[in-house]
């Protein structure tokens, strides 16, 4: 499932995938795969992304119940 929230949070912070990748110490491809829902990041990487985007785990990685 695509992670739209993460992409939106990144865009709101005026960061491109490359910037976020550098901030959390991974490659741009990994960020792209997370956003497209093709890679499940470890909890450590989730936390690093949340810190870089100044969001909580709930904000970015918890699905809203319908």
């Amino acid at each position, binding site marked *: 499932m695509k992670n739209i929230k993460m992409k939106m949070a990144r865009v709101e912070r005026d960061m491109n995938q490359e910037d976020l*990748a*550098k901030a959390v*110490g*991974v*490659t741009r*491809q*990994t960020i792209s*795969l997370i956003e497209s829902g093709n*890679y499940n990041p*470890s909890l450590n990487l989730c936390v690093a992304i949340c810190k870089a985007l100044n969001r909580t785990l709930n904000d970015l990685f918890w699905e809203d119940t319908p």
Partner: protein
Amino acid sequence: MKNHAATDERIMYQRRKIQSRGFAYLMLALWISAIVQQILKAPFMQYAVELFLLLAGGIYNIVANYRLGIDLWNAKERKPGGILLNAVITGGVGVTVHALISKNSDIAQLVLFFVFFVAFFFLAQALLAKMARKKQEAIIQKLEEDD
């Protein structure tokens, strides 16, 4: 400039997967090489290195899993009867393959080979299962202490 590919968890995971597959393919190639050379009736010294490396690879796998506390043998569930049955089946298959490859029809020799194989395989498996059970018990005890 920092190389992020070296710290990227996804890339590291994929690299480990590639290396693990490489190891498995190498083991398979060694096994095929040893079997083919046996079929072609090559002298033992010619394929001894392949056999020893195959053995070393297997031992490495067992020891590494054991040290990390990975229960390869499902030690808690394994009973001596199951291990013996496994040894008899493996011994039967082993002796049949040996007889076919070497065209050995000496029944006494094949029976001796079978008995020796079953005894060795059973003892080795029983020992490994016992060691694994002890290790699992120690891990559970440690977890309970921490809890």
